[in-house]
């Protein structure tokens, strides 16, 4: 078994639906989506125009599902999609699209372009046109359990350290808990403070929680690469664990696409609604804040801006929680013009940060200028966000431009300033 063009076309035939058809038929080539895409605004290269990134998908739609398209194909007016073409598009579909969904917000005819990209990736994945970085991350997630190849003993180790430093117990595989806490590999490896913060907050609020030794990983490279079968394998682990442990809630970590995978794609991948609720950590925190449980002992004085991760806010719908939370802990929060659902992507979402080719990295650095500009315009040296992947991408960007900006995670920030 191996990837092939036929499989790709076959997959596209499966996923093309009425919205895709309606979107393609509506496009008037106005190019306004380009103005909403950081890959275009920062490079000025028209090939990064979002709707252009799904051009092969349009051709397949036209050739397979429209009468005129079939006729055109039959008489040779419309050339079939080729491997070479898809290879050319790989860069456009993965390297230069973070599935941030900003284009879907501006399209005047209402096209949800990111919806189209997500479907197009189904074809790209099985036709073999995926960046190695994402492919290997997917393989590791399916075969080992996480995109970084992290195994439970290592996680257990981190948890033990967190228990030591907080003096709190972190339950594992405890049946009947309120919350099943998920983590992302990046958090475990790069930001273990997140786990400590969470333990403190749960303890304070008196909420029972547990981790699952066979489903600690929330990230889902399957949806980034764009394969529902693999995404289903990955998400099923969480569903199985949550049902086995009989939890009421599954807590999604800060990580953006993990939330997308479990909260919005999950039930559709396994083909049935969940018997539990999926909650993003910020939603829980905001609920606690409203209940008065989340009290601060002091506030951060530094002026700062917030980076709203695309998959959590614009595409995930966690619109209201972040601002009250940051105001809870920061004295000088400066709202920026393009905030909330209008935020600009960090440049590393949708699996892009897993692509480590020279070109991809150079492109990421280039488009990071939009974040740089936001920082400079606000005149601040501190940025807060709530997505592990955004944090890594932004750190890289800050390094690249040698900026001495402080980047903080919202949950940790809250834990740090919380009343003991």
């Amino acid at each position, binding site marked *: 078994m191996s990837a092939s063009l036929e*499989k790709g076309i076959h997959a596209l035939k499966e996923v093309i639906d009425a919205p895709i058809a309606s979107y393609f038929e509506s496009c008037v080539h106005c190019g306004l989506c380009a103005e909403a895409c950081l890959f275009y605004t920062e490079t000025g290269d028209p090939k990064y125009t979002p709707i252009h990134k799904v051009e092969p998908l349009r051709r397949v739609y036209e050739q397979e599902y429209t009468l005129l398209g079939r006729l055109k194909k039959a008489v040779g007016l419309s050339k079939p999609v080729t491997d070479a073409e898809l290879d050319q598009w790989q860069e456009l579909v993965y390297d230069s699209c973070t599935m941030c969904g900003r284009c879907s917000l501006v399209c005047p005819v209402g096209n949800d372009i990111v919806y189209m990209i997500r479907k197009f990736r189904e074809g790209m994945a099985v036709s073999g046109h995926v960046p190695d970085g994402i492919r290997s991350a997917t393989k590791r997630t399916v075969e080992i359990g996480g995109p970084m190849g992290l195994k439970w003993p290592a996680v257990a180790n981190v948890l033990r350290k967190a228990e030591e430093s907080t003096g709190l117990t972190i339950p594992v595989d405890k049946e009947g808990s309120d919350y099943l806490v998920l983590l992302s590999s990046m958090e475990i490896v790069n930001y273990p403070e997140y786990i400590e913060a969470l333990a403190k907050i749960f303890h304070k609020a008196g909420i029972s929680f547990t981790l699952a030794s066979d489903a600690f990983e929330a990230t889902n490279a399957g949806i980034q690469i764009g394969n529902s079968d693999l995404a289903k394998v990955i998400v099923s682990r969480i569903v199985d664990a949550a049902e086995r442990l009989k939890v009421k809630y599954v807590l999604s970590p800060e990580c953006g696409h993990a939330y997308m995978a479990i909260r919005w794609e999950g039930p559709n991948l396994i083909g049935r609604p969940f018997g539990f609720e999926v909650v993003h950590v910020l939603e829980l925190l905001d609920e606690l804040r409203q209940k008065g449980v989340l009290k601060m002992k002091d506030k951060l004085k530094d002026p700062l801006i917030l980076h709203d991760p695309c998959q959590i806010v614009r595409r995930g719908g966690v619109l209201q929680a972040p601002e009250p939370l940051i105001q809870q802990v920061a004295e000088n929060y400066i709202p920026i013009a393009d905030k909330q659902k209008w935020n600009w992507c960090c440049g590393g979402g949708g699996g892009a940060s897993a692509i480590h080719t020279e070109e991809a990295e150079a492109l990421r650095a280039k488009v990071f200028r939009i974040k740089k500009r936001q920082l400079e315009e606000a005149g601040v040296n501190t940025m807060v966000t709530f997505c592990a992947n955004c944090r890594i991408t932004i750190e890289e960007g800050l390094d690249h431009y040698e900026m001495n900006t402080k980047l903080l995670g919202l949950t940790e920030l809250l834990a740090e300033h919380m009343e003991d």
Partner: protein
Amino acid sequence: MQGPLIDTLARQGITRRTFLKYCATLASMMALPPAAGRAMAEAMAAARRPSVIWLPFQECTGCTESITRSHSPTLEGMIFDMISLDYQETLMAAAGHQAEEARHAAMKDNAGKYLLVVDGSIPLGLDGAYSCIGGRSNVDILKEAAEGAAAIVAMGSCASFGGIPKANPNPTGAVSVSDIIKDKPIVNIPGCPPIPVVMTGVLAHYLTFGSLPELDEKGRPKAFFGETIHDRCYRRPFYDQGKFAKTFDDEGARQGWCLFELGCKGPVTYNACATVKWNGGTSWPVESGHGCLGCSEPDFWDAGGFYKALSVPADPLKIAAAAAVAGAVAGVAVSFANRAKKNTAKQTHEPITVDDLEK
């Protein structure tokens, strides 16, 4: 009989000043400079009367009526005093062979100089047998008479464009003068009937300048057919304001609003009715409350109904229902094909494993 025209007029009690005044007005109507009125008067007053042969073919005599019943016989009628009308079946006293002889004599005496006026269309069906005079078909007579004519005036829509006889299905194979005669100057004076002053204007011009007036691409004198009825219509402001009579007896009709919606063909009809009017300037169709029929345009009879507004399709939605059904059927058929295709794709889905990601 062949003395200067002014003497003839004087004998009829028409003074020189009356004639001058008439020529001034005629020149004005023909959009000639004011000085031309005087030139016209002088030229015509002194003119020797040209021979005119008037051939009626497949016609209703309405054109002759229009000319001879014009309201001020002393004025429009003057034109008959300016010419020597050597043959006109309706008007001439002679009949039968006598009349035919008069025509032949005039043609012979004035060869190359006479003016030929034609009213009625010419049927070509059955070798022209649909209309014969003295046993000869109209087309034969026309060809023979045209041979020696200096110029031809096609009076009325039938002679100009074929008119009502040519209307679908045109059983007699009727055609216009210009369909048959190609080598003579022809003036078309369309209208059903034509406006008398156009006829007199053309004759006056011919008598004065020895040539035909400036014609448009349809052979009509530009002076009278240069603008549409709609352009010169006194109801035009209502059109511009969007005020339309919806029926012939509604408030809009009583208020004299635009008749566009009632099928007025004014916007596509080139004629001078709106300015010259009829019956000595008394009124004209639109002023009397009825839309223009477009009678001076080619094929006006078949132009989609007199009471259908111009912007309205002649036969709305004739095939629309059938087309809609066909579209729906095609759509449903494509839908079924598409759904079957998509379902097949889904059913033949082979689960993907990580190994499948490699090429």
